[in-house]
């Protein structure tokens, strides 16, 4: 029974990915383009050589992995945090401010402080939604989503005001000093320390959920708030608020890592919707840290492959978005469909 369910759990994402690629290939063919060449270019661009893997796929995977974990931490507690995007921006902004202001003589402490500031800012941004939920019963789906737009506009204001580069010509911050940048893992590749931090975040989250009392409370709350409250005497609302704040901290860390590791300056387009893609990453990974690592590799490869596809086969990168969207739809729909076919209608209760 349980192993059967595990098989189902693993087969769902595989079917989703396979089906989505097939659908995308069909559309590409119908559009009169060469699907075979597009697919080859995409696979080459994602996994073809060490540059593709290290500088494209894994580099792109890094923010998606951290954000996917962030989303999962909230979702596992039954809190639908749609605001990873905003928390990511808050983290990137705080990291910028710290990296630009701290004097260079602190050395590596600068990027560590920038990362910490990012996590705190992300937590703070999520805490607004947590507070609104507890104090005014505002649904977090709405508040976290709307806070994304607030964050985006706040970034827009800061890079045209207090954080703008000194010439005042471009809507972006100055490039952060070298001491604020995350070290690269390989001399000639763009993969940075953030990748290891992301893997550590996934491992740490798995460990916390599995082996700590707080992690167990979080899981129990998400699985059944009623049982958690009644049988576990768990303060469900508080656990959910803490989960949302922790989720925000991880998302903020992702923002800081992306800024100090890749972009090195703050501007409005720093996230191409990572926070939203991360919801797909988390769901495709079954909200499990191990699954999310694999899902993040897939989405990272999808992004890297899409760029290559456009470059090499002149197939618009938007087809990768089609694949991503179909994958998410399949992952959401398949368990429901399976439940429908495996168990019949349940009888009503007697009185």
């Amino acid at each position, binding site marked *: 029974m349980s192993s059967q369910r595990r098989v189902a759990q693993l087969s769902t994402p595989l079917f989703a990915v396979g089906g989505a690629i097939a659908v995308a290939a069909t559309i590409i063919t119908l559009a009169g383009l060469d699907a075979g060449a597009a697919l080859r270019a995409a696979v080459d661009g994602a996994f073809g050589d060490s540059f593709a893997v290290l500088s494209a796929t894994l580099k792109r995977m890094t923010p998606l992995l951290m954000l996917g974990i962030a989303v999962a931490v909230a979702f596992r507690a039954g809190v639908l945090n749609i605001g990873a995007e905003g928390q990511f921006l808050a983290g990137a902004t705080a990291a910028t401010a710290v990296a630009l202001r701290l004097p260079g003589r602190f050395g590596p402490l600068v990027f560590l402080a920038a990362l910490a500031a990012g996590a705190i800012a992300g937590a703070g941004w999520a805490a607004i939604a947590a507070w609104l939920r507890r104090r005014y019963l505002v649904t977090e789906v709405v508040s976290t989503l709307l806070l994304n737009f607030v964050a985006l506009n706040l970034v827009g204001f800061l890079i045209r005001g207090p954080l703008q580069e000194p010439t005042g010509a471009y809507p972006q911050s100055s490039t952060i000093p070298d001491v604020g940048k995350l070290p690269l893992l390989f001399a000639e590749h763009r993969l940075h320390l953030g990748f290891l931090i992301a893997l550590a975040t996934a491992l740490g989250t798995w460990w916390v959920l599995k082996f700590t009392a707080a992690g167990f409370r979080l899981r129990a709350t998400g699985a059944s708030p009623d*049982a958690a409250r009644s049988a576990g005497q768990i303060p469900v609302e508080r656990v959910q608020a803490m989960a949302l704040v922790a989720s925000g901290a991880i998302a903020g860390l992702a923002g800081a890592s992306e800024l100090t590791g890749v972009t090195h300056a703050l501007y409005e387009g720093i996230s191409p919707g990572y926070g939203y893609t991360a919801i797909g990453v988390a769901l495709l990974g079954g909200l499990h840290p191990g699954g999310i690592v694999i899902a993040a590799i897939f989405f990272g490869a999808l992004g890297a492959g899409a760029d290559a596809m456009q470059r090499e086969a002149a197939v618009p990168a938007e087809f990768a978005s089609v694949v991503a969207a179909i994958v998410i739809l399949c992952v959401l729909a398949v368990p429901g469909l399976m439940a429908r076919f495996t168990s019949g209608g349940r009888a009503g209760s007697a009185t």
Partner: protein
Amino acid sequence: MTALADTLELQNISKRYGSTVALAGASLIARPGALHVLLGENGAGKTTLLRVASGLTTADAGSIIHRGHAVRWQTRAAALNAGISIVQQHFSLVPAMTVAENVALADRGMLARFSMASAAAHVRHLCAEVGLDLDPGATVGTLSVSAQQRVEIVKTIAHGAPVLILDEPTAVLSPSEAESLFEWLRGFAAMGHTVIAITHRIREAMRFADSITVLRGGKTVFASDGPFTDDRPLLEAILGESRGLDDRMVEVPSTPGSGSGRDIDGVAVSLAGVSVTDGNGVPRLRDVNCSIRAGAIVGVAGVEGAGQRELLRVIAGRLVPTAGSVVHDRQAGFVPEDRQREAVIPEFSLTENFALRGSGARRGLIRWSVIASETKAAMQRADVRAASAESAAQTLSGGNQQRFVFARETVGAPRVIVAENPTRGLDVRAAAEMVRRLRDARDAGAAIVVYSSDVHELVALADRALVCFGGAVREVAVSAEAIGSALVGAS
């Protein structure tokens, strides 16, 4: 049209849910112009019978004769087409919408054009016609529970069905509200409608009903037209023959003694001035004072919505009262009625479910190997049959789940154990075993608080009896008659 032609007749209806027999040959005759009241204990089959009548479920056997024809409907819509409508116990209203919008929503023409003004006029017209007091423009969420119920009724009668069925409409109402509802129902029936209502309030039933039918154990045991002057035959019909009751009481003379003999001084739980108001602002418990000593079984009785649910949760420390003070055991064991929702997390393993108890106060790391061996020990002790301690809780049968929950909640010999309908859904042997375990725990010095919807079970089990009625809690003698009359508010 003759009265006979319009009669709705349910004959020998039987219905099973899995292995549970809900109805075993129940009958009911309802004629236009009369208010019919259906009485019976919880689980007597009242709701099921009316669900059959209104097409919400189908009968396994028996027939429905409506307007002189044998009919058999599969859906609520089919019953509605034939002129039978039902107001269910749980409201289905959209709180953010107005009364008129909610009524319009119930219209079956999905593509029909909607205008606010005509919807409001429609509701105003309906209300005036049947004599209900409602403001069509009011937002439903801001209305009192009794007004929301009127919305539900207007929604139902808007279909123009001549037969109106109501499932325990008084459960959510205060005594005075219940009285005015019954008054209205009688007036509505007098306009030529057929009205059938389930209630637990025997006094209102006697006062307002034109005819009363009593179900017990899925069978019709009493059916008579009014007027009703003596509640004795009704109580007897509801609770079973008084001769049978006496026999049951004789069975257990020694138990109260054996408990009080070891009476441990010390009050395990005490409630002072406890009141509970639910999220909708409805008072559920009013100024309850009681203390419960160790080494005794306290039986709690109450019809649905009378406050016993909240009382048990306050005693178990699962609900913080709105007012008043409670002294209780933080380690109190709690076996709720709805296991799947409140006691276990179905998709978690048994070990994880075992860890759930007390997890709110746990610190640091969880040592799963230790918990797994504790789980195995508890499963062995309570004879829980499962493939392993790592099996998901949902793979266990109901009886095994209940044994598991009971074992978990009694780990560490808590001073207080609260159990809500602990034998519900168990077969005879498993139920007897549960009763034995409760007694064992009592004899070991725990204070046991048991709610049962079966009065006989309470009488057999309890050393003391508390009865909830309309949020007040009263101690009565441990006898079916005393509990039965307190349940329906008779003094």
